[in-house]
């Protein structure tokens, strides 16, 4: 891995860390991000990026847009994309020098309510991630024009291997309100989660089992269908039983399958 590719991978990682951070842990990742985009190897490009820009004036103009209500302040980005990128770089460096300002900056310009973590996530989504994407393009294109060795590998590693997309089915909360009635129901969400965990264990066991590649594919397809049934919130007893019984008759697999079956059948419709 070249040093440039390695640098962009670390920048990408710091963005992923900020996405998962809370208001208590955000600062550390933000400072890492700021330090990485000011790497000495990028000094000449950064100087070129910020030449002639006045961050103080930009912040002063932006603060002047604040009305009487919270959430009305707007950052007055210039029309020119290159200048916007430069101002963002300066802004990130300024906040890194005074990280105690991060929360107030986020709550002034990226307001989502009275929740600091959400506001920092809003800052990450709307400022830092787009900046990371545009900055990488700026560096790569600048180095290509100047003929310097520039690794075109994307920070997400896409030049090395095809990205494995995650598909995630989201289901409702199964929360309920009862008006004029008594609730005797079981919380199926907990059952669903337990079944999902067992399904993952089952998948792992299938991969470990002494089966041919074709048998593993077939077994995985069966598990996919079981998972779809669970995800639907209304798994059918007859369908789930038939699917699970069609799995390879290996003890570890049948034991896990029985656990899933017991979990679902005890709590869902027949």
């Amino acid at each position, binding site marked *: 891995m070249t040093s440039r590719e390695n640098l962009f991978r670390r920048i990408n990682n710091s963005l992923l860390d900020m*996405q998962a951070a809370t208001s208590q842990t955000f600062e550390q990742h933000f400072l890492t991000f700021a330090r990485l985009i000011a790497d000495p190897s990028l000094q000449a490009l950064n100087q070129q990026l910020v030449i002639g820009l006045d961050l103080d004036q930009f912040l002063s103009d932006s603060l002047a847009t604040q009305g009487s209500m919270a959430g009305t302040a707007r950052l007055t980005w210039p029309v020119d994309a290159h200048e916007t990128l430069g101002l963002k770089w300066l802004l990130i460096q300024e906040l890194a020098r005074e990280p105690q300002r991060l929360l107030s900056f986020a709550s002034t310009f990226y307001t989502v309510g009275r929740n600091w973590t959400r506001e920092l996530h809003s800052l990450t989504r709307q400022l830092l991630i787009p900046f990371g994407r545009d900055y990488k393009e700026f560096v790569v294109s600048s180095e290509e024009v100047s003929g310097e060795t520039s690794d075109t590998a994307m920070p997400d590693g*896409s030049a090395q291997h095809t990205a494995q*997309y*995650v598909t*995630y089915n*989201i289901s409702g*909360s199964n929360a309920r*309100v*009862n008006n004029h009635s008594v609730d005797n129901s079981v919380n199926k969400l907990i059952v669903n989660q337990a079944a999902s965990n067992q399904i993952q264990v089952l998948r792992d066991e299938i991969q470990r089992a002494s089966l041919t590649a074709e048998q593993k594919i077939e077994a995985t397809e069966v598990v996919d269908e079981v998972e779809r049934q669970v995800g*639907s919130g209304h798994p059918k007893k007859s369908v789930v039983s038939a699917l699970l019984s069609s799995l390879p008759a290996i003890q570890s697999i049948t034991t896990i399958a029985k656990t899933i079956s017991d979990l679902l059948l005890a709590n869902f419709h027949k």
Partner: protein
Amino acid sequence: MVKIKGLEALQKTLSEAQKALDSVNGELGTLSFNPEDPASIEAAIAESERLVDERLGSYAGNAIVGPLISQMKDAYRTAVVEKAAEARLKGEAADDE
């Protein structure tokens, strides 16, 4: 005859909440994202928020449903970020093999 206005309002709130929560039972939608790409992850989170707003947005003023909207969005955000982290770890483990 004494008219209890507060009770009527409470019943209306409960009735609305019943309708709202019925609309988010079962599957809400499918998200697809590249676990290595922060922008792709954010897009998936934004899509989950849109799905919640689509079903519950019109009940945002309801005293029961309003807080639930924020809780659901937070829960889906956390779930997407965790799924992405899990997929990255699996990818790294596979690369090491």
